[in-house]
């Protein structure tokens, strides 16, 4: 299990514990935790509705893929540590990270 913190659009923070051995993505865990994430494309890095900003721990998560950067580039607003939650695997690298929801439909 890994533990990380999620901050919603209103700034409310919550600690989330997630299994790191099931091949899940951060998007899937956020959805399962009842955060209102659309994830239109189902996790293919094609819609950017699961846009998040990594407030802490971004260095451990690795580089965004080209497909991910293409989507982020298209958004009206993005941040130096913006990522798509669907492209982040739940793994020990997420331990202690702080993630802010940025998708426009959240």
């Amino acid at each position, binding site marked *: 299990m890994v533990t990380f913190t999620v901050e919603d659009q209103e700034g409310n923070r919550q600690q989330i514990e997630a299994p790191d051995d099931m091949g899940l993505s951060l998007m899937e865990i956020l959805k399962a935790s009842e955060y209102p994430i659309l994830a239109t494309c189902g996790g293919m890095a094609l819609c950017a509705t699961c846009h998040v900003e990594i407030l802490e721990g971004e260095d451990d998560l690795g580089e965004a893929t080209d497909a991910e950067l293409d989507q982020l580039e298209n958004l*009206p607003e993005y941040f130096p540590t913006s990522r798509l939650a669907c492209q982040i695997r739940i793994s020990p690298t997420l331990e202690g990270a702080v993630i802010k929801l940025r998708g426009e439909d959240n």
Partner: protein
Amino acid sequence: MRCHLIDYLPQVGGQLSEIYPQKPIYDIPGYPEIKAQELVDNLMDQIKPFKPTFTLGERVDHLAKQTDGSYIITTNDNTQVHAQVIVIAGGLGVFEPRKPVLENLDHFEGKGVAYMVKNPENFRNKKVVLAGGGDSALDWTIYLANVAERVTLVHRNETFRGAPDSAAKVFDLANNGKIDLILSANLKELNGNGKLSSIKLESKNKEELTIDTDYLIPLFGLSPKLGPIADWGLNIDKNAIEVDTRDYSTGVERIYAIGDINTYPGKLKLILCGFHEAAIMMHSAFKYVYPDQKLSFKYTTVNGVNAF
């Protein structure tokens, strides 16, 4: 039953055509692997005998119930369709343009701010600012460079991730003085008295720049919204329409919802399930379209395809 399809996108196929046309799908029965657009093309072929008709690029805005129970459907372009039954197969809703976060943006919508180029002639001899860095921002910059009086492209980064050919063309146009290219800058503020007249930009190092313009076209891609569906008196739960799984009817008579737009206990958002829902819905809808006829269930293998 004759079917007329209305979709806000300029082509049929919804998410498959719009979001992932070239992605393979592995869970369609009978196809170990098929590309999304190929599936849509095949479906279009398969329905040809039934001569469906289409209104594309228009959004259904209003439903007006008639005294006989039928509906008149009106789109945002005032196209009207008279139907005995409405089936909402709206996926996650309407693909609406993503909007930049600007304080008085809605104030200038339709008064200088446009999210798509419907008729390029509207911009002839006008000053136009485009914002965005994707393919559509590049393509429209290139196109409008020959139409508008002056085109300015504002992009947040130094480079473009869109098609390299288009990016090269845009840099060429800028180098030859045909357009103004403003990189590493964001939209900050819109100004005008009733109609857009200037835009304030802010560069990465917080310098401000104001440019006079007649139009702003923000091109930041599309995002799904429930849209007008939310106002039709249907039971909505988490952006989906609640249906009765006996026939995928909504709480409103003659209105059905199938596919990703509906929700019910055990719902799976799969194309496969959409097909199932559609077949059952059709059998239920028949009674409204042909109230005097008895519906008899037939197999195509026995009876062939009865085209119109």
